[in-house]
């Protein structure tokens, strides 16, 4: 089972976490056109390689954090700005 480096609790089994999303910028809802808004809702890079993601430590510290993951090997790398 993949280990995820929680910036607060250290490496833990991935089963303790909930995957939130690939990191995507949220457009200003007031300014965004329907197209832009739905791109934000639905479009993801879905790259095969290193991706920055947000995870939630559901069965741990209850914190949301960022982590880098290689999507083919599922290796992970902690980030300086994880918290």
């Amino acid at each position, binding site marked *: 089972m993949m280990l995820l480096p929680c910036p*607060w*609790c250290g490496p*833990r*089994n991935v*089963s*303790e976490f909930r995957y939130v999303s690939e990191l995507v910028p949220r457009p200003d809802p007031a300014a965004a056109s329907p197209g832009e808004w739905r791109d934000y809702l639905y479009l993801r890079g879905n790259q095969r390689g290193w991706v920055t993601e947000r995870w939630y430590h559901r*069965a741990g*510290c*209850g*914190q949301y954090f960022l982590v880098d993951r290689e999507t083919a090997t599922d290796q992970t790398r902690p980030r300086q700005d994880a918290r």
Partner: protein
Amino acid sequence: MAELLARSPVTPASPVVADGWEVSGLRSSASLTLADLTPLAKVAVRARPAGAMASALGVPFGRAARDAAGALLIGSGPGEWLALGPAGQEAALRGRLEQTAASAAAGELVTVLDLTHGRALLRLTGAQAAATLAKVCGIDLADSRVPPGAAFRSSVAKLVADVVRDDLTSSDATGGEGQARSYLLHCERSYGQYLFDALLDAGAEFGIAVDGFRAPGI
């Protein structure tokens, strides 16, 4: 009207009343025991992870320590603490913590919340306590990882639970010499009976027995 009686989510075996709670009166001297400590006062504190309140409390995330008044203060999360005190003392405990907040951390948002009735608290004690816990918890419980005074939150029998390594000295230990290995388990109240049963099942091969509530319990 019926006498005012507080009840734990864990149905007590041979019930007696202590400190206004219906608790189990069992007394076990087995080498591995499980006790329901739900009656203990449980007060949660929320504040900045590294703010004035944090330094006033002086217990970092991942550690647990007893304060001058004998309450067990647990660093249960970033900017999150859990204080355990004697049964029936939640008001006093909350008062003390609010006092600390007022004096040491004025201006900082500090929440002191009485969760006595919102959580279940169990104690697993004995040489085989770690082996028992290892059946329901994926954390490495080796002394090098979880020494006495360590605390962590993780998945226990598919529940989210706070686990505190809080060994007992032989005086109140159930058998065993000197320090008896002991863990406190703290979870959402409604899961209390489930967790209690899961631990009994896990400890069956080590001859686990239920021990009653011994006031003050902390």
